[in-house]
C-alpha cells in the first residue's frame, strides 16, 4: 500500500515538474489586416528626394501618402520599431535618421516606442550603438532593447510549410504594432533582403540557425505569416548593390518606401534595385525568382502581383 502511495506521489511530482518545465506553446496572435489599402489593393508609397533632402521629411511624406501613422498607432499602444542591424557595419543597417523619424512619428501618435533587434552577426547592443541607432532612438525618446537578453518563447505557426512553431521574444509577442525598418540590400543567399527577411531579427540566434539548416526562404515566409510587420519603412537613401548584406557597394538612391504589405514593398524595391544594377552594369538578379518573396505571397502574407498594388510616387525635390 505504501509503495503505491509513494509511487503516486512521485508520479504526481514528476507530472508537476514536467508541466512547469516543458516549453509552452503560445498561440499565434491574430494577424492584423493591412491598414493601408485602396480598393482592396495594397498601397506602396515611394518618396524620392535629392541628396540634401531632409530624411525625416521623406519618411513623413512616405507614411502620410499611405494614410498616416494614425491608421495603426493610437494613444497607449506599444510600438516596436525593428531596424535591420546584422553587424556593426553601418552600411548594412538603415540610416539612424530613418529609424529616429519612424520612432518620432509613432510617439506623436501616442505610442510607446521600443527600438528592438537581435543581431545575427555580432553583439546586439554593441552593433546598435556602433551604427548610431541606439543614440538616435534614445534622443527621440524611444527605449532601445537588445532582444537576446530576453528568454525566448515558443509560438505556433499554423500556416507554416517548413515551420510548425517558432521561438520569438516577449517584446515582439506582446507588442501592439510592429514596424519594420530595413535597408534596401542585395544578399548572397536570397538575392535581396528587405522587410520580409528583416523579420529574422525577431527570433533568437538558434532559431536563425534552424532556418538556415531547414529551408531559409520558406522559413522566412512562414515566419511572416505570424509575425508580419504592420508597416514597413524601407530605407533606400543608399542601397547596397553587387553583393550583401555586408561588403557591397553603397549607391545613392535618395528614396524612402513605405507599405503595410511587406511582400509588396519587397517586390517593388527589389525591382528598383534590379533596374539600378542593370543601369550601372552590375550583374544582377531576377526579381521574379526571389524565392522568399514568392513563398510569402503564396502563403497570403501579401501580394507580389503588381496589378494588385497601388503605387503612389512622390518626388520631393
Amino acid at each position, binding site marked *: 500500500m505504501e509503495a503505491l502511495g509513494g509511487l503516486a506521489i512521485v508520479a504526481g511530482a514528476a507530472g508537476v515538474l514536467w508541466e512547469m518545465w516543458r516549453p509552452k506553446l503560445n498561440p499565434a496572435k491574430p494577424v492584423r489586416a493591412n491598414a493601408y489599402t485602396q480598393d482592396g489593393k495594397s498601397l506602396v508609397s515611394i518618396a524620392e528626394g535629392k541628396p540634401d533632402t531632409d530624411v525625416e521629411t521623406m519618411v513623413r511624406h512616405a507614411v502620410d501618402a499611405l494614410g498616416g501613422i494614425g491608421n495603426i498607432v493610437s494613444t497607449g499602444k506599444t510600438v516596436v520599431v525593428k531596424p535591420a542591424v*546584422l*553587424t*556593426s*557595419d553601418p552600411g548594412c543597417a538603415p540610416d539612424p535618421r530613418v529609424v529616429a523619424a519612424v520612432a518620432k512619428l509613432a510617439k506623436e501618435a501616442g505610442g510607446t516606442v521600443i527600438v528592438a533587434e537581435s543581431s*545575427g*552577426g*555580432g*553583439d546586439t547592443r*554593441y552593433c546598435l550603438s556602433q551604427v548610431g541607432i541606439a543614440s538616435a532612438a534614445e534622443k527621440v525618446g524611444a527605449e532601445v532593447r537588445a532582444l537576446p537578453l530576453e528568454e525566448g518563447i515558443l509560438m505556433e505557426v499554423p500556416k507554416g510549410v517548413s515551420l510548425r512553431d517558432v521561438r520569438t521574444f516577449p517584446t515582439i509577442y506582446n507588442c501592439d504594432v510592429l514596424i519594420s525598418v530595413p535597408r534596401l540590400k542585395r544578399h*548572397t*543567399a*536570397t538575392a535581396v533582403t528587405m522587410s520580409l527577411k528583416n523579420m529574422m531579427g525577431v527570433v533568437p540566434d538558434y532559431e*536563425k*540557425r*534552424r532556418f*538556415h*539548416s531547414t*529551408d*531559409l*526562404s520558406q522559413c522566412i515566409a512562414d515566419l511572416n505569416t505570424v509575425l508580419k510587420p504592420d508597416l514597413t519603412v524601407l530605407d533606400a537613401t543608399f542601397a547596397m548593390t553587387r*553583393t550583401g*548584406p*555586408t*561588403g557591397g557597394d553603397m549607391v545613392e538612391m535618395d528614396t524612402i518606401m513605405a507599405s503595410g504589405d511587406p511582400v509588396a514593398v519587397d517586390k517593388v524595391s527589389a525591382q528598383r534595385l534590379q533596374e539600378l544594377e542593370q543601369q550601372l552594369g552590375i550583374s544582377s538578379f531576377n526579381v521574379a525568382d526571389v*524565392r522568399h518573396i514568392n513563398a510569402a505571397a503564396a502563403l497570403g502574407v501579401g501580394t507580389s502581383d503588381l496589378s494588385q498594388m497601388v503605387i503612389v510616387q512622390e518626388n520631393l525635390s
Partner: protein
Amino acid sequence: MRIARREFLKLLAEGAAALAVFKLVSLIPSPPRTEIVRPPGAVEEEYFDRLCVRCGTCLEVCPTNAIVLADFSDGIEAVSTPKIEPTVGPCEFFRGRCEDIMRCSRFCPTGALQLVEREEVKIGTVEFSSDRCLAYMGKECVVCNEVCPVHGANTITSDLKPVFHGEKCVGCGICVHSCPAQPKALTLRSKGAKRARWLR
C-alpha cells in the same frame, strides 16, 4: 633545528624522486603545444607556458567569452592556459566589442600576451569541411560570408557556395561561431598563427 644525516639523505632522495617524476610527466606525449589557438598577442609558445601564471585575468576581461582554459587533452603543461574557442565566443579584436582594444593583451600581467597592432594579428586560420557545409548540400546559407569582417577572406562562387582564402583569414572565429550547420563546417586551427616576440 638539526636534522639527522639519515633524514637529510632521505630528503635528498625524495627531492630527486620528485624531480624525476616531473621530468617523466613532461615527457608524456601530448599534442604539440603550437596547435593550441592562443589569444591575440600571444608570445612564442616556448615562452608562453613559462610566462603564463594561469591567473585567469584574460579569461575574466574577454568581452565575448572567447577565451577558455586548456584542459588535459592539450597536454599537462598547458592545463589552464588560455585558448580561443570560437564555438563559445568569437574573438572580436578585428571587428566588434574588442576592436582596437585587445583586452586580453592589455590586462595580461606577465607579458604572455603582448599588445600588438591589429594588422599584425593572426590568431590562426579557419578550417572548412565542405561535406558539412549547408550551402554545399544545396541549402541557402552563406552566413560565414555575411559575418566575415575581413575583405577577401571569404568569397562566394556563382552557385552560392562559400570559398575560404586562408592567407587573408585573421582567425577571429566569427564565422565558426555563426555557422549554423550541426556539426559545424568550420573549425579554428592554429595554422599560420603569428606570435609576438617576447621583449626581454
